[in-house]
Every structure is written in structure tokens, then in C-alpha cells.
């Protein structure tokens, strides 16, 4: 097997919550709970989950924007959280991010040139303004924007165009990894398709690796090769997109898939039945226990581990 481009190794991330009592130890919110992932060059990896499940935290850690509480991330074999700051800065040219909000992710006070050229600072060599301008013009035309728009400001563009600017910014250093955190969810359907197409074209062209984070199952299914489902900071199921969507094993994945409303009014699918929790949840329980309709006694006092099950990884005692 090829060496993975990104190796996420047993990452935990805790956030301290405000105390409720004065002399209490600050309670901890565990955003990520032992995440292990490998991303391979040229593939798309999808991360799916509901809001607050920790998928954005994971993205920030992969981007070295946040430090994990424990565990680490290797990029191309290099430990991101154990290297000099200057080196990390140069390494950053290899992984860039595309954000969700096409309005908030571009500095309104900077022109396109300023925005798109910013990651060029991570390059080892210093570029002249003219060189930078050339780079920017080139990348702009690649993402389908006018190369002469460098002096315009974000507010002069539509949402879809802004997201193209954001993609241009992420691509200008020719990175190998792009983390796309809900990158199309704020866009209208018709524009979303344009941007998705663009991203896929670029992947093909530059052999990009995508870490594609979304709550939209259909988009993830459409874009990715591999997918992991996260629930409360843990991966509950992981596998190839095709397999996972065809035959979800974990009850949570099944619930998710069933919940997506079908555009075909004739398709009255199997509905999720309201779950009446049979067991009281404890600290040792499976995190999904209170929403699971397949829970058995074993789930109460044991948290399932992510184990291989028919080619997929699934963390459930009762996986079918």
C-alpha cells in the first residue's frame, strides 16, 4: 500500500467549558475522540456528520490551526505538531483550505490580488510583486474568473464567484491537500453544481487530495471516494463511499441516510421511527445509545470499537 499523504493518528481534542461551580475542575468537552484516518494522494475523503460532531475541529487540526490534546497528524510523513514554526509555515504551502462562508472567508478590505496572493508568503523564495501578480492572474483564469479582476474587492462578486476566489487562494501554492469544510453548502443549488464541477476538474488536473467535510450526504456521496461518519467526536463508520452508501452498517449512518428527503415525491422511503431509549446512558455507553433502535444490553456498559466488518470499518456491536 502506498504511503498516505495525511495520517491522522489517535487525535483527541478537549475543550474546557466554563465552570459551573467555583472550585470545580473545569468540565471538558471532548470534541474529538481518538480519530485515526489516512488520506491518499489524489483521492477524496469525505467526512460526514451532524453539526457539533467535531468535523470542523478535525479540519482545523489537519490544517494545523489547532493543536490536538493528544495524538498527532503526519503530513507526508512529517509530524505537524512537532516541528519548528518556521518549517511548519513553509510546509503550509502543501495544504490549504476552502471555507464555508463565501462572505466571511474573504477579507472585505483586501482586493482579489491581496487575498489570492496571501498564501504565497509560505513559499521559501520571496516573490516580487510582478511575479505574484502573474501567479494570481494564472490561477484566476484557471478557476474560471477574469484574470484582470485582481483589483476588484470581494463585494463586487457573487457568491459563486467568491467561492472561486477562495479556491484560487487555496490553489495558488499548488498544494497537494485541500481541506474543503462545507465549501458548497452556502451556495445555491445551481452554483453549487458549478463549484463542485470545478473542484473535480482541478482534482483531476493537479492530482489533488480532498478532505471533503459536509453535512450534505448527497454531495459527499457524489464527490468522494472514501467516507467517514462521525458521531460525537468519534468515527462510527468508515469505508469506500460506494459501499457505505449502498450498505450502511451503523445504525447512525442508516438513520442519516433515511432522513434525507428524496426529490422524487413517489419515493416514500422507509422512515426513521422515533426512538424510545431503552437504556440509561452512562459514561461507558456507546455514544449513540440514546438514539439507537438496535441497542442491546452490551451497548450500555461498553463503547464499541471501530472494527472491520465486511470491508468497512464500523463501531457497533449490532452491525448487520
Amino acid at each position: 500500500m502506498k504511503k498516505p499523504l495525511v495520517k491522522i493518528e489517535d487525535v483527541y481534542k478537549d475543550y474546557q467549558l466554563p465552570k459551573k461551580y467555583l472550585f470545580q475542575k473545569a468540565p471538558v468537552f471532548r470534541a474529538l475522540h481518538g480519530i485515526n484516518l489516512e488520506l491518499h494522494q489524489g483521492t477524496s475523503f469525505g467526512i460526514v456528520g451532524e453539526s457539533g460532531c467535531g468535523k470542523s475541529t478535525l479540519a482545523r487540526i489537519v490544517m494545523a490551526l489547532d493543536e490536538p490534546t493528544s495524538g498527532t497528524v503526519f503530513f507526508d510523513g512529517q509530524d505537524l505538531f512537532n516541528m519548528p514554526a518556521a518549517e511548519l509555515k513553509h510546509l503550509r504551502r502543501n495544504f490549504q483550505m476552502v471555507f464555508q462562508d463565501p462572505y466571511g472567508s474573504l477579507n472585505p478590505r483586501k482586493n482579489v490580488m491581496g487575498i489570492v496572493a496571501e498564501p504565497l508568503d509560505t513559499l521559501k523564495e520571496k516573490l516580487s510583486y510582478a511575479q505574484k501578480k502573474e501567479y494570481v492572474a494564472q490561477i484566476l483564469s484557471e478557476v474560471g474568473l477574469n484574470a484582470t479582476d485582481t483589483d476588484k474587492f470581494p463585494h463586487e462578486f457573487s457568491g459563486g464567484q467568491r467561492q472561486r476566489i477562495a479556491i484560487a487562494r487555496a490553489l495558488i501554492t499548488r498544494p497537494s491537500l485541500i481541506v474543503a469544510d462545507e465549501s458548497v453548502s452556502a451556495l445555491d443549488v445551481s452554483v453549487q453544481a458549478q463549484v463542485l464541477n470545478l473542484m473535480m476538474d482541478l482534482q483531476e488536473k493537479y492530482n489533488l487530495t480532498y478532505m471533503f467535510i459536509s453535512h450534505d450526504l448527497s454531495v459527499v456521496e457524489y464527490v468522494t471516494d472514501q467516507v467517514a461518519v462521525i458521531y460525537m467526536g468519534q468515527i462510527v463508520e468508515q469505508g469506500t463511499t460506494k459501499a457505505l452508501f449502498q450498505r450502511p452498517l451503523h445504525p447512525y449512518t442508516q438513520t442519516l441516510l433515511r432522513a434525507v428527503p428524496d426529490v422524487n415525491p413517489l419515493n416514500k422511503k422507509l422512515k426513521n421511527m422515533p426512538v424510545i431509549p431503552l437504556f440509561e446512558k452512562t459514561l461507558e455507553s456507546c455514544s449513540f445509545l440514546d438514539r439507537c433502535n438496535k441497542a442491546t444490553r452490551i451497548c450500555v456498559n461498553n463503547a464499541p470499537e471501530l472494527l472491520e466488518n465486511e470491508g468497512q470499518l464500523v463501531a457497533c456491536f449490532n452491525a448487520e
Partner: protein
Amino acid sequence: MTLLQVQDLCVTLNTAHGPQEVISHINFSMDAGEKLGSVGESGCGKSITALALMSLLPLDSQTKGKIILEGQDILKLNSRKICSIRGNRIGMIFQEPMTALNPVKQIGAQVSESIYLHLKLTRKQTLERVTELMDKVGLPVSRFGLNLYPHQLSGGQRQRVMIAMAIACNPDILIADEPTTALDVTVQEQILDLIRELADSSGMALIMISHDLGVIAQTTQNVMVMYTGNIVEMGSTMDVFQNMSHPYTYGLFSAIPHVGSSALPGRKRLSSIPGQVPELHLRPRGCNFADRCSRASKMCKAKEPMATRVSDQHQVWCYHPLSCEDKK
């Protein structure tokens, strides 16, 4: 029986570019108990239409046309009469359950407010009614007390409170404006089920507004597809979604990736609609979609299309509607 009839509704809003007509010449009607959907991309005017029905548009806007609720034109009523319709005859659920609830009032007080305003019940009756409502929306008082504040609830629970408020006076019409857009997909399913059930059980008419074709498909009987302030296609949900005739509707459907796409062999490009939704002040003459439409002719750019009947319950506003072969 026709409950609501909207005739030639036009709304002009004050924008940075001066007054702009954001919806023009909307016509539709709905019967008691009907579930009507309104779908389109952002800026198509679907929310404005709903706000116009509630007379909730900004004061500096202008509304023309007629909105007839059981023979009474809402637009001609004075503000006091309108207040007696809002929340009483028509209830509304908004998109953001985070911001749509008053953060400093207890949920019980917020739910009972419209009961107190419109039904003039005694304190005890009001309390009973609130308890009943909370039960209905799945927030039984026994577990969720009425003295909670909105910030103590999750998004789905807040949306349930919103629903309780909207149906508190058994309105004739319930308008749900993107009620699940801010929610997770599993919660969305529950909320949609709840709305559907409530509408069915009480015979309320429902206007469901969403940009999500799936939501509309699963909750409505009839649908209107809107684009830049116009209805471009309208009919029974079944007809429109199965047999879309407007190039825009078709474009929308083709642009979304469907669940199950991974089962299909190979990876297909999504077919996107070229260009983007024109800004308000840049809307073209003629058919607003003409600039993005591959079928557009000279006529499309010159004159707005009139309604064309596709079938009994299916109209399209297009000079060149798609036939079955075009979609293959």
C-alpha cells in the same frame, strides 16, 4: 373551497439601488387543508411572498394586488385587523430558531402570547392550551417546563416551540418558511413529520417554503417553482417533479447530486445552470431566465412569457417548455 387567493401580487422594496420590484404578478390560490410548496433559489421571492401574506414586509415597501382570505382582502385591512389575522388565522414558522425566539422571555410566555391575544381565554384555560400544545409538538411540560428560556433548548426543540406558537390558535393557514434549513438532517426529518402530521390532523392549509427540492417533494401536494420574483412553473408536486417543463426547473433537478449516485457507474459531471441569478436591479427584460437558458429565443428576451397549460394541474411560464424527449 378556496381559502386563499392571491391575485397579481407585486412587491416593491427599497434597496441600495432604489425601489425594486422583488416579486411581480404572482397569482395562486389554495384550498383549505391544501399543502402548497414554494421552491427556488435564494432571492427568488418565495419568502417575500410569505411575508406579504402576513403583511410583515418592511414599512417602506409597496404591495400591490390582492390577497383574499375567505373573501376578505388582507391588503385593504387596517393594522388592527391585520393583527387579529396574524397568529390567529395565519401562523408562521421561521427559518432561524436561534434568533426567531425572544431570548429574554420564557418559552411558556411566548407560546401563550398569541392565545392570550386572540382567544381571550382565562389564565387556567390558557395554561391548559399551552400544555396541550407542548404535548403536541413533542415538548411535554412534564419534561420541559414552561419557564425555560430559548437558549436552554436545542435547535430542534426551539423549532418545536416555534411550531407550537404558530399553531396555538388553530390557524387556517400555516406558513413554514425554510423551517428546517438550519437543522441537521435527522432533526429535519422529525420537524417535517411533525408539521405534516399537525397539518393533517387539524386540517390546516400549509405553505411550505424551501430551497430543498426533497423537502418540498416529501411534504406538499402542489408546488410553485419561483425564479427572480416570478412563478415559472406550478402544479401538483407529482406533475411538476416528475414531468418538469420549465428549463429552470429541469436545471435545478439536474444540478443536485442525488443520494445513490455512487451506485451509478463512473463519475458524471453535474449539469449546472450556466451563469448566476441576476441581481435585483440587473434583471433582464422579458423572461428573467432567458440569459441562462439554452433554449432561449429572441422572443424570450423581449417579452415575459404567459402561462402555458401542460396538463390540468400543471402550468408553465415558458415559450419553449421541455417535452419528454428533451429530458432524455
